[in-house]
């Protein structure tokens, strides 16, 4: 699947396109098919996202979304060396998902 990510303009936070908004959780991301360019242009112009780009990902059996590249998985979770600053601070095992 193709999903979209970018950074929030004000805070810089990593965000993912949910179909009608942006979420900080990658699992909320939806397949944009061939609509990536159109959505990115519209959302960037409206300042709802900064520096968006599309990437490959897969939806796993449990419904979770896993970006294909490790760099995007680090973006999705947070720094692997600071579990306390990730989106899953109570689940240190989440680091394994990144690697």
């Amino acid at each position, binding site marked *: 699947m193709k999903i979209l990510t970018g950074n929030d303009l*004000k*805070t810089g936070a990593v965000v993912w396109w949910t179909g009608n908004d942006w979420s900080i959780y990658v699992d909320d991301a939806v397949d944009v098919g061939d609509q990536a360019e159109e959505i990115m242009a519209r959302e960037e112009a409206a*300042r709802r996202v900064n520096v968006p780009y599309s990437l490959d990902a897969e939806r796993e059996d449990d419904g979770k979304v896993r970006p294909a*590249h490790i760099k995007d998985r680090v973006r999705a979770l947070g720094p692997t060396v600071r579990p306390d600053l990730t989106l899953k601070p109570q689940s240190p095992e989440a680091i394994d998902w990144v690697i």
Partner: protein
Amino acid sequence: MYKYDNYDQQMVDARVEEFRGQAKRRLEGKLTEDQFKPLRLMNGLYLQLHAYMLRVAIPYGTLNSAQMSALGDIADKYDRGYGHFTTRQNIQYNWIKLEDAADILADLSKVEMHAIQTSGNCIRNISSDHFAGATHDELVDPRPYAELLRQWSSFHPEFTYLPRKFKIAVIAAEKDRAAMRLHDIGIQIVKNDAGEIGARFFVGGGMGRTPMIAPMIRDFVPLDQLVTYAEGCLRVYNRYGRRDNKYKARIKILVHELGAEEYTRQVEEEFAHLLDQGVEPPRPELERLKPFFADPPFEDGPKTVDRSDPDFALWVDRNTHRHKHDSYVSAVISLKPVGGIPGDATGEQIRTMARLAKQYSFDELRVMHTQNIVLPHVKIADLHALWTELDAAELGAPNLDTIEDIIACPGLDYCALANARSIPLAQRISERFDKSGKTAELGELKLKISGCINACGHHHAGHIGILGVDKKGKENYQLSLGGSEAEDVSLAKITGPGFDEDGVIEAVETVTDVYIAQREDGERFLDTYRRIGMSPFKEALYGK
């Protein structure tokens, strides 16, 4: 240390307000990201993997307690409670909000700091010897010259849009503690046969994807022509440096392609032309700067310490440096606790270091390019009290220049350019060698890790270097041996095929075993490598 005059303060304050307006227009949609990006970069604001990142300049690594304390406050007020000291003697914050950026710059300005020219294709922060003005082995304090160059290079209208970024280091000792010959320009303050002080110029060094050691292009430039000669070096680069390919745009490529001799000829020609153009600041300006770096009022006192506490004695042996006054030492605060993140310090730790500098080091600190902090002037009589406080703040790791004192760039955990993570390797290696007890046995061993070819972790200059690469979407690590950024400068050579994360940690252990088995009396790892060559290490790593 240097104090802003009214002109400096007004200039920095004006820049803060200018950026405040630019950021406001970006947030209001009056500027696109393409329009805003060069403006934010000129003020040190990057967009990294997780958020905006702000890089703050620490000129030649020198700062006072109020400045250090302000850096700690920024970490707590605007970031997530910590900052990261970098390999160019600066500090970075990883979780900055655009809407806060101008306020942070305003807070910095109150303590005479800024983030100007910490990004972009301009002359970056001038770096220097972290023991400058304190060490026993320097000719003079290099910082007045670094400050003169800083003032010349700040907002220099001709050098705001160079082909690529430009880094200058200034030292004044035979011992190179600033990786001087791995800079675009390395300047060594020297004395000639007539006893006059001048500057030796090395041009065209650097790390990155094409590492090069800067050749010497002039062995002596009189001090009253220092800035003019630097201007000549920059002018030739600005005119002929490549702008068609960013990977070939650094001055090292120009010097290499022209040849050092031809580049030097062109610089000398430009220099001769510039000599009567009024480029050089009047000599009184240098004399005005020198008192800012005058010695503090040293007092005689005890010259030895009580070594009855073995932990304290080990820290003294490893983490102090001989001072020019025999009742003082320079004390190094390691930001490399076992298993920690190299260069990271919490807001509280930063303020603790500021307080200790005020109490024990005439209000002065230095940032090392190896991501540690120096208290330059500590009375030997105060060392135990200082160490006790450092230890309580988890800042007392006794590991300077050991295999646990690892340089590591932020890597893929933070950096948008990185291909692999650096920090986890540093953590695991320091834990492994601390646990095995081999650290002491290995002695001086400089291990440096970069998460991509840009080499912010200085892997080319590591006795052992590790470079993270992307191999079909997986992290992979190349091992290299034999680098040095010191006065015996050399570039490390790759051992062979790369390793995965576990494999490269095993490989580090393997090459240290080869060293222990083959070393002769007094040899460091680097000395043994240079004597026996790569073959024994390759055999141990890959078999025959």
